[in-house]
């Protein structure tokens, strides 16, 4: 099915002109938001966001979602920035950039479904990090949001090969990364690492993007990588995957990510996974609704 060798695929991914870049309108904002939070000025962030209509509307939707700001009604951009917090603006801007990069029609994958999975994984990663009292739950959110960065690279750079892999995954109801490996010789984790390094994402994000299917191979930020690995798996088993059910049985205790996570969190075996699983259904409903609203504005 695939005509390109693994080496040719890597070469293609590594060539600068093929890889997606940060949308020009958001680049200055992302650079500004890289400053420490205490050096950011709310009005300046509001002004910069207001140059981008879709980001403005996205901020308003997020600020009015119970997933982010419970029970507050927000009707101005400034109100939304304040409600969400300056510390979260980088996540929102990155997410918006991410959405802008995805073509409307991607060889068989519905961008809405892809985006739902990313947002679902972000929320579950954050939820799990809080429940397990792991440090920096907000870092877990961004890591979950961007974990499938490599899919963006694949759909833009290798649309035919990725489309073939997705077809195989869907027909056989197997995990997407297994089908990618079979068809392309690489996975979205490999291409994600290349793209993440090019975008100069934070090292912990690069680790998550590169190793979220092989957490045992992560050399840095192992617990964050493992956390996203588990969150990703739970989303895929709970109808927040890539638009098809994976025909499998998952025993978390035998998963490699669980083994890594338990090193940092010895109480993991006593954690109430059943309740967490039921709680995930909440996210499913809200994520569908939020992404539908966000995508209408792109």
């Amino acid at each position, binding site marked *: 099915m695939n005509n390109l060798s693994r080496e040719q695929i890597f070469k293609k991914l590594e060539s600068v002109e093929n890889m997606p870049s940060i949308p020009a309108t958001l680049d200055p904002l992302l650079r500004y938001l890289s400053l420490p939070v205490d050096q950011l000025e709310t009005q300046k962030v509001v002004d910069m966001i207001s140059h981008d209509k879709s980001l403005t509307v996205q901020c308003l939707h997020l600020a009015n979602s*119970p997933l982010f700001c*419970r*029970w507050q009604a927000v009707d101005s951009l400034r109100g939304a920035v304040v409600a969400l917090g300056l510390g979260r603006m980088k996540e929102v801007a990155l997410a918006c950039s991410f959405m802008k990069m995805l073509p409307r029609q991607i060889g068989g994958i519905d961008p809405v479904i892809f985006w739902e999975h990313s947002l679902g994984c972000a929320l579950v990663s954050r939820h799990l990090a809080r429940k397990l009292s792991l440090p920096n739950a907000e870092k877990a959110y961004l890591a979950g949001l961007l974990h499938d960065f490599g899919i963006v690279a694949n759909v833009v750079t290798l649309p035919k090969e990725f489309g073939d892999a997705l077809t195989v995954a869907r027909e056989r*109801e197997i995990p997407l990364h297994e089908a990618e490996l079979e068809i392309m010789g690489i996975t979205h984790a490999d291409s994600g690492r290349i793209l993440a390094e090019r975008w100069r994402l934070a090292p912990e994000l690069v680790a998550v993007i590169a190793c979220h299917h092989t957490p045992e191979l992560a050399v840095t930020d192992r617990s964050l990588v493992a956390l996203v690995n588990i969150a990703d*798996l*739970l989303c895929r*088993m*709970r*109808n927040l995957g890539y638009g098809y*059910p*994976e*025909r*499998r*049985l*998952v*025993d*978390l*205790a035998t998963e490699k990510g669980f083994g890594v996570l338990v090193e940092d969190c010895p109480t993991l075996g006593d954690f*109430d*996974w*059943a*309740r967490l*699983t*039921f*709680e995930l*259904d*909440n996210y499913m*409903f*809200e994520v569908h609704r939020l992404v539908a609203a966000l995508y209408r504005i792109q």
Partner: protein
Amino acid sequence: MTISPAPEPAFESTSFAPNPHLLRIRDLLYQTAGTFHPDHRLRFLQDHCIRRMEELRITGLREYLGCLTAQHNQQTELTALLNEMIAGETCFFPNAPHLNALRNVILPRIVHEKSSLPVRRLKIWSAGCSTGEEPYSLAILLMEESKNLLADWSLEIQATDLDERSVAHARKGLYDQHATQNLTPQIRQQYFAEESGGLAISTQARSCVTIQRLNLLDDSPMSLIGDFDIIFCCNVLIYFDLAAKNRVLQQFLGSLLPNGYLFLGHTESLFGLNDGFRLVHLPSATAYRKQARVQERSHS
């Protein structure tokens, strides 16, 4: 055979601040009964509570929480609320994700694991079968699979319930419109016959089902039941206290084959109850699997 999801009541927005007393009732139900209402289903829990409050002629959730926790009345009111919650769930194919996971994941695994055995036999126990909708749904699913995956397999479904009237109803096998609402035209035509008063289950679907009265807390007849690949026990354990739950679960461990599966109601949990079972995730569903080398010891 495709099992479509049962009609879902209109989803209510979570954009309302949950009543703190409702959240306490939710937690109480999870701690005592083991059934959980996620946020997006809190409106349904509230509706169930309101119906009980109307019955009791009280007006606030705070007061109703008091009823649920009052020493003298606790078990009675909890049972009444649980009855309210599961009323209407007794129908054919009530939980599509469970049954799809059974068909697409669990059955192929069992067939694979038992493929080298001389006798190809699949045994399922529907524990707390109520009026028979669950065991007959399972029978229909297995019959459909016997066209391919389960061809040449011996299929046995043991259905038990404590209540004599329910057992009699199950044996009679006549069902009204509510119970049969999820049937596809093909299933309806192939496995049911029109009779006055509803739809009667066919002889074919009955052929692999045995129905008997059994008290899950009565140890002596329980010990005679065994070698099951799968147990379904939906919305039954929620009525038992902790000690009784553990007793029944220990019996289930003894009745299941190694690596056998236990399916509970779709929001029921065994958290903290018995380490002989381990939670497994299936597509949009969960189940429990008996640990292969579990010691079948008392777990009180």
